[in-house]
């Protein structure tokens, strides 16, 4: 049973990353009803921003992470101001699909901008720590520990922000019922902007973490984003705690399948689980079935 250790280490590490990516996606979906196809690109931009700050400008690690956060937040804000806001004003009834196409255009643009600026070859993220702790039989790399701890800390901070602050309460109110929130004097458009900035900041840090165990490449965010989408769907789009639990659970299953059957079967196994779950529970594992008025 010596595979349990490595499977858990790799499963929990990727789980933490998926959970962080899912958190940003789910936040935006839950409040704006917008599936941000550029979320993966925000991860990529975060990773490259940290790389530029740390190895090209020689800034210390905390500043590099801050740079990644800032870039994610700014791009998130730009996506809202330039794309999401005009689209939602123009055609609210088709927003759900048009925003996916439009944000994909954004993703394509940004990803190619990264490709032009940095080139296609993979780069090493300087913000990674070597070495490992020996836990009686298997090694726990420091990097993995750092990832899990920072991901959990970020999720905790987000949860505190959403539940304890006035801005967080406004976000939750808008997610539950935008019209009622507006009538209570919540500036809904500003809340939406805040949500996208928050989601972009989370994505920026997540990109730094993802690139610290893999490598920097223009398509860095694509794989975590697709997985995060799947986690969101299984959990029920817009459900934050459910999305986090699902991320860890499915990541461990994925790691197990990859160890037992080979790396290429991890994703197909995930997809099969997702489809089976959705056939039984179309609203997702934790999703409430929506009652829509006509």
């Amino acid at each position: 049973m010596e595979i349990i250790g490595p499977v858990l280490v790799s499963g929990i590490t990727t789980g933490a990353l998926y959970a962080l990516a899912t958190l940003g996606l789910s936040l935006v979906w839950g409040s704006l009803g917008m599936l941000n196809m550029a979320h993966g690109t925000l991860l990529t931009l975060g990773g490259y921003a940290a790389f530029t700050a740390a190895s090209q400008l020689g800034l210390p690690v905390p500043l590099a992470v801050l740079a990644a956060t800032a870039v994610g937040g700014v791009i998130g804000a730009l996506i809202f101001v330039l794309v999401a806001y005009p689209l939602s004003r123009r055609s609210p009834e088709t927003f759900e699909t048009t925003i996916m196409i439009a944000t994909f255009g954004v993703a394509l643009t940004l990803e190619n901008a990264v490709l032009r600026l940095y080139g296609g070859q993979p780069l090493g993220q300087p913000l990674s720590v070597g070495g490992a702790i020996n836990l009686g039989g298997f090694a726990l790399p420091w990097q993995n520990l750092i990832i899990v701890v920072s991901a959990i800390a970020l999720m905790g901070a987000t949860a505190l922000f959403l539940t304890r602050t006035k801005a967080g309460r406004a976000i939750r109110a808008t997610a539950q019922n935008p019209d009622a929130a507006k009538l209570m004097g919540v500036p809904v458009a500003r809340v939406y902007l805040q949500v996208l900035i928050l989601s972009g900041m989370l994505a920026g840090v997540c990109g730094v973490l993802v690139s610290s165990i893999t490598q920097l490449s223009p398509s860095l965010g694509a794989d975590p984003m697709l997985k995060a989408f799947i986690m969101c769907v299984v959990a029920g789009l817009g459900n934050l705690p459910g999305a986090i639990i699902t991320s860890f659970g499915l990541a461990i299953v994925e790691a197990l399948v990859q160890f037992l059957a080979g790396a290429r079967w991890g994703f197909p196994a995930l997809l099969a689980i997702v489809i089976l779950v959705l056939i039984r529970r179309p609203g997702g594992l934790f999703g409430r079935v929506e009652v829509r008025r006509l």
Partner: protein
Amino acid sequence: MKREDLAHPLVGLVVLAAAIALPFYVDSRYVIGQVTLGLFYAIVASQWNLLFGFSGVFSLAQMALFGFGGYATAMLCFYFGLNIWAAMPLAAVATVLFSLVIGAACLRLSGAYTALLTLAVAQVMYLLIVTDTDCFVMVGTQCRQLTGGAVGFARFGDLGTRAMFKAKFLVANYALVVALFAITMVFTWAIIRGPIGLAFRALRDNPGCAMARGISRFQMQLLVFGLSAFFTGLAGGLYAAHFNAIGPGVLSFSQLFFIIAMVVVGGIGRLWGPLVGAIVLVAADEAMREIGEFRSLGLGIIIAAVMVLMPNGLIGLFESIWNRLRTRNPGMTAEMSGETPA
């Protein structure tokens, strides 16, 4: 017959005449080749338009179905030695069956859920083909994977046009693609005009009311999924036959969104939207060849900008200009209809 009913066939005849005239005026093999490629895109885009524009199913598996048709054709020829002309319709039927399996799994949900699941299916298909390294058969001294692996299949059959038309074979292939395009458009037009098309559109515009009138959303959307898969798969087969090669590249993200961009630029839910979009984007792609490196970047900006600035596409833009010109003449109605948003 109403005037609107005549408009589409008339446009169709003009397009067909232009397509037939083209090889008589243009001698460049390169241009003919690019127009052929554009027509392949237009066929796939028109079927995605049938699915999304007319029926409201946001599927991201369109290129996966196109690829499936191409791969099925190549594999039927490669492993079973079938004639390519027999393989193409078989592959198209196989694509329909494959699409029904995907549809049964993904269409119970709607909107963004369907989009994500179909995208995941397409991505899994791509990954499984690219990472396939196990030897299935040995060709000479070379190992060949069941799915062709990252390389794909090449030289598995021939349409016979090369032997029949010698140097002019490219024009013959072009004629085949034009014919397939024409049949596809007639098929699409017949569907959206008929009672099924009405049901599709009802489900798109107001699923709740449509279901209350006794239309089964799942069955109808599965039907349109299967219907649109047939010509998509057939186009995939002809694509594989035309280039005599098929690889995992057709399943890539950028190819899928190139198709979607065509529908968006031309006009979602407009019969001729995909063709207009294909012409504009292939032409823009050619124009951007000068600035080579920035092609995808430009494409991304075009998609986002068109979506935000003119959500009804070029045809929608023409329609609103046309309506404004028409209502300007009879004085009174101009002020009344001028205020209503398009």
